[in-house]
């Protein structure tokens, strides 16, 4: 028991990071499962982080309240974003959402309420490990329950073949909006927790680099697999620490490992042991 506590004490920051990263990865996974390469998660994360930080620092709201409001805001923004991008697919959608992310970053960089380029610091550090992992558990359970509903089937159908999905009566636009909003909500949760788990936040924490990182987690874990998203984010969060001993060669090793995983397991890490189960893991089947 003591060794466990020691381990936790030494690595608590990483453990917290793993939890938040898992939530962020799940937020993107939701979009990817709908076949949408909507790369605005980092922006939603940032919006929620700032909302939560502002409410906590300027108005002294308690943690839960700031999280609730932050998640609401990011969800609404995501739902609104769905409208202008409703006709976009594939790379077009990706670039449009990246552009949205840049716009959000610049706004955060220039407003005084967000602290401009210096960001905000002194955010109450009350997103403790239980809070983070409790939130992760809530998200995981919610997504699991959702996977047993018609909505999950619709999401899979829209991903597989949008035209045929319309042909069986699915409102593709509504599904895309809902999945974007859901992703926004989860990313918002991650963002609010991130803010309260970090001493300070700056606009660059939520830019394209972060978005790339989240995308890499999901694809390495397995694009359409929520379990894969968590595996990917966990593995790649631990990796930098695990190869810490490589010092100056860390970065290049990071890149090499990423490349290796992708080249040898394009279906992601989660495909490595679910190869036997194949399509059976599909959420659609749970409803048939």
């Amino acid at each position, binding site marked *: 028991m003591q060794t466990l506590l020691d381990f936790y004490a030494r690595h608590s920051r990483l453990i917290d990071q793993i939890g938040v990263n898992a939530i962020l990865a799940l937020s993107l996974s939701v979009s990817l499962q709908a076949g949408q390469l909507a790369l605005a998660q980092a922006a939603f994360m940032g919006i929620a982080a700032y909302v939560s930080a502002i409410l906590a620092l300027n108005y002294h709201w308690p943690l839960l309240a700031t999280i609730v409001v932050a998640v609401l805001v990011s969800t609404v923004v995501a739902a609104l974003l769905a409208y202008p991008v409703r006709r976009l697919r594939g790379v077009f959608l990706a670039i449009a959402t990246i552009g949205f992310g840049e716009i959000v970053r610049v706004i955060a960089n220039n407003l005084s309420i967000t602290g401009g380029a210096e960001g905000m610091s002194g955010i109450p550090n009350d997103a403790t490990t239980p809070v983070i992992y409790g939130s992760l558990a809530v998200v995981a359970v919610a997504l699991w329950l959702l996977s047993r509903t018609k909505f999950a089937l619709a999401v*899979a159908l829209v991903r597989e*073949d949008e*035209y*045929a*999905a319309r042909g069986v*009566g699915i409102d593709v636009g509504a599904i895309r909006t809902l999945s974007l909003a859901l992703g926004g909500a989860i990313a918002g949760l991650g963002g609010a927790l991130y803010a309260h788990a970090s001493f300070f936040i700056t606009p660059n924490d939520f830019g394209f680099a972060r978005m790339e990182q989240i995308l890499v987690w999901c694809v390495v874990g397995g694009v359409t697999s929520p379990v894969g998203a968590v595996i990917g984010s966990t593995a790649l969060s631990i990796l930098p620490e695990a190869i810490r001993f490589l010092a100056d060669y860390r970065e290049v090793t990071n890149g090499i490992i990423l490349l290796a995983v992708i080249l040898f397991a394009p279906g992601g890490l989660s495909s490595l042991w679910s190869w036997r189960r194949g399509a059976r893991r*599909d959420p659609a089947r749970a*409803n*048939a």
Partner: protein
Amino acid sequence: MLTLEHVSVRYGGVNALQDVSLTVEPSHVLGLIGPNGAGKTTLVNATTGLAPLAAGKVSLDGSRINSLPPHLIARAGIARTYQNIRLFGALDVRANLAAGAYARKARLTKDEIAALLERAGIPGLDLDARAGALPYGDQRRLEIARALASSPKVLMLDEPAAGMNPSETTRLVETIRAIAASGIAVLLIEHDMPLVRAACDSVVVLNFGEVIARGTPAEVARDPVVVEAYLGSGAEALA
């Protein structure tokens, strides 16, 4: 009952369909034939809301549907299969059937699933098989089963016999006639003349987007206008 009245569709400057009127009645199989490019698939797309009408009206049981979005037209009771199979290939058979019934209900019972497969002529198909991995003929029939799963009023089959051998095609005739007998209005687009003769109660012939003939399969096969339209594409097949 599906009714098209004076329907016109334009792509660019071209009239893909011009002043087309036809009716598909319940328990009736209407064949839609014509040379390649005549507008047959365009007609199906226009009916299902995938192509906008330049003029005319499409109604289902008296209610206008042509201004509705595709998913609402599907929910109103129109189901279709596609010229190039559009199954949810990576999902299993069970999921594809559930997809078909999506608008109607959340879950299909074992009996309902068995009945659908029976009606489509693929009883005993492995429900866990990946749809995209099935043999071609089974895929075509699975598409029909998926369409039937929504309990449609109208079923549009777009070249369901493409790629089938003669004995499979004969079986398909029985399948189609049984579907019509259950009360559904069936529109069958086909190139396979024996299939059209055997399965259809009446036939509409399109050429260059216009209706050039109507009647029973036998009448249409004898119609000189129709024979001439097919002259470059194997008119002997009509006889």
